[in-house]
């Protein structure tokens, strides 16, 4: 039996999770052709930063920016030292960043032990009939939408955003037109890291804080990015919506495991049958409609 309200909440939850997990990774992959398999660990650092600040006495609202800052700094350092050698080498970047992730996870375990005491979930839950759902997690779906909207504004209305899109489209031409592509890459990697840190910070109150926590984010993020297609924002939104819906539907009826499997299975179908990803497919339809109207 499909409980519609429950399904709605599960969808919003799934949508938020996928979008927030993926957006940082999508921007980095879209701009620099790097598949950062350490993305999960970036998120983990954000969560750890937030939790450590909170456990030291800061209120949640202040701890979140701390987490974001920690991840951003780390991201910038890594970009200068390691990541910049991997641009446009997607296969090598997968292997190298995987190695990075391994090292990060283990270093965290060595320094901070096997777990930190967790932050409780704020805001309580929504009761309806015999069900309840965490308010906080549903709220995160608004945050996800806000992040997408903010990214859209930055990419389309600011000068930085326009230069960034030009670099994504054609780095050589952008460079010839005066865009400092090196600096663009560094800043973008910083933004991607910050977003990853934000995700970790936001989800920290809802999870147990262990060094391996990043991997649950990595899978959804990775799958959303690769099925999204060339257009960063449109792709992430479509992936979040589409895969989120599949996940919510199957989880609702068959449980979370099957929901996850369904999500992954649909992703494989998309990879095989839509070579340009979800955003590519949508753009293809739009083009065909335009052509029919001319």
């Amino acid at each position, binding site marked *: 039996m499909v409980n519609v309200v429950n399904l709605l909440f599960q969808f919003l939850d799934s949508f938020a999770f996928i979008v927030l997990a993926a957006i940082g990774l999508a921007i980095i992959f879209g701009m620099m052709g790097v598949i950062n398999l350490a993305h999960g660990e970036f998120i983990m650092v954000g969560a750890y930063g937030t939790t450590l600040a909170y456990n030291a006495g800061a209120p949640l609202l202040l701890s979140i920016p701390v987490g974001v800052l920690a991840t951003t700094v780390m991201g910038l350092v890594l970009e200068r030292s390691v990541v910049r050698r991997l641009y446009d080498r997607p296969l090598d970047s997968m292997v*190298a960043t995987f190695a990075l992730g391994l090292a990060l996870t283990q270093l965290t375990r060595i320094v901070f032990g096997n777990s930190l005491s967790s932050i409780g979930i704020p805001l309580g839950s929504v009761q309806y009939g015999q069900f309840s759902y965490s308010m906080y997690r549903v709220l995160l779906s608004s945050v996800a939408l806000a992040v997408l909207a903010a990214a859209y504004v930055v990419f389309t209305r600011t000068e930085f955003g326009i230069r960034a899109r030009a670099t994504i489209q054609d780095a050589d031409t952008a460079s010839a037109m005066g865009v400092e592509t090196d600096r663009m890459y560094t800043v973008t990697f910083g933004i991607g890291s910050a977003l990853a840190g934000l995700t970790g910070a936001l989800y920290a109150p809802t999870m147990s804080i262990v060094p391996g926590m990043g991997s649950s984010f990595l899978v959804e993020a990775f799958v959303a990015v690769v099925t999204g297609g060339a257009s960063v924002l449109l792709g992430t939104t479509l992936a979040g919506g589409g895969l989120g819906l599949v996940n919510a539907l199957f989880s609702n009826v068959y449980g979370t495991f*099957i929901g996850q499997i369904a999500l992954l299975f649909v992703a494989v179908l998309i990879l095989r049958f839509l070579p340009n990803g979800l955003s590519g497919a949508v753009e293809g339809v739009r083009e065909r409609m335009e052509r029919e109207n001319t």
Partner: protein
Amino acid sequence: MTSPYERLFGRFEGPNTIGNTRVFWAGLTVALALAAAYPLVVSAYTAGNTALFMLYGLLAMSLSLVWGYAGVLSFGQVVFFGFAGYTFGIVSINLGSTLGVTMAIPVAVLVATVVAFLLGYFMFYGDVSGVFVAIITLVVTLVMQTFMAQTAGDEWTIGEVPLGGFNGMPGIPNLAVGTEGAAVSFSGASFYWLVLTILVVSYLGLRLLVNGRFGYAMVAVREDEDRVEMLGYDIRRVKLVVFTLGGGLAGLSGVLYASWGNYIDPSVYSLAFATLPVVWVTVGGRESLLGGVLATVAIEWFRQQLAITGSAWATVVVGTLLLIVVLALPEGIVPFVHRKTVGFVEGRRMVGEDTPAADREGTAE
């Protein structure tokens, strides 16, 4: 005028493998003799332990074949590994007898091969390219992990064997060949020798393959697909054949693994294990069969040592090593060392030639 050496070794040598001199083969023979003598000087337990690293070497070679030689990065070798391991367990436990165990071996390898064929067909005949093959194989691995992890319930039983979910499938018998009365069972030292034999035979078989016509086509596909296609080759078929073969090899490794530990669980499908073959082969040199095997044994032994001494730094060291190799030595350690030391002595061996480089006049590197 071909010498006996040429007639024997000619087909195993070529530009696609390192080690094309008498010195190499002599060295290899010595190393094999030492390896064979190893269980005579250590305990059965240690020999069995080393056998694990060696069967992993088989898994590494399967990835080396698919990635290093045909250019197809697959994170999915563990899928075939796992399928074969689980199938071996299911069939051997259900059938019970030693004959049952014997029959389970080819059945399990066949299952792995068929799965590889289906996945390969799905990808290559759908014109999925490069990075997306890596991605799809990675996602399939995750699907398998998630799926197997939730098979804990009693309804997930095949014959008399529950799949076991997270708890895994215990009670998998040792490898055995024969029927009641006339059977050979393998454990400890005998298992070690079996794995060593399989490893050597596979290594030689792969050398034969990659240095022959098909191997040549494989390498060409890796280098420049479009060019090869316009010379009349069906590149999708080439990739499918290689991928299927790699799947069978990974499956064989999986059977050995299941019988080694008498146990298998969904962790074989985990991200951590799926990426290990990529680590081994990247460090060892993906275009080198021997490099892959050596790196596997070295890395796994090293990780085990660090785990034993309780050091948490094992993963950090491996991760850092991998990072350094990708950034600084993309060809891998063994080919790098070979190039800097022995390579210029060996000279340039040409495909299809009978005489080794050292015997030709005027060869310069």
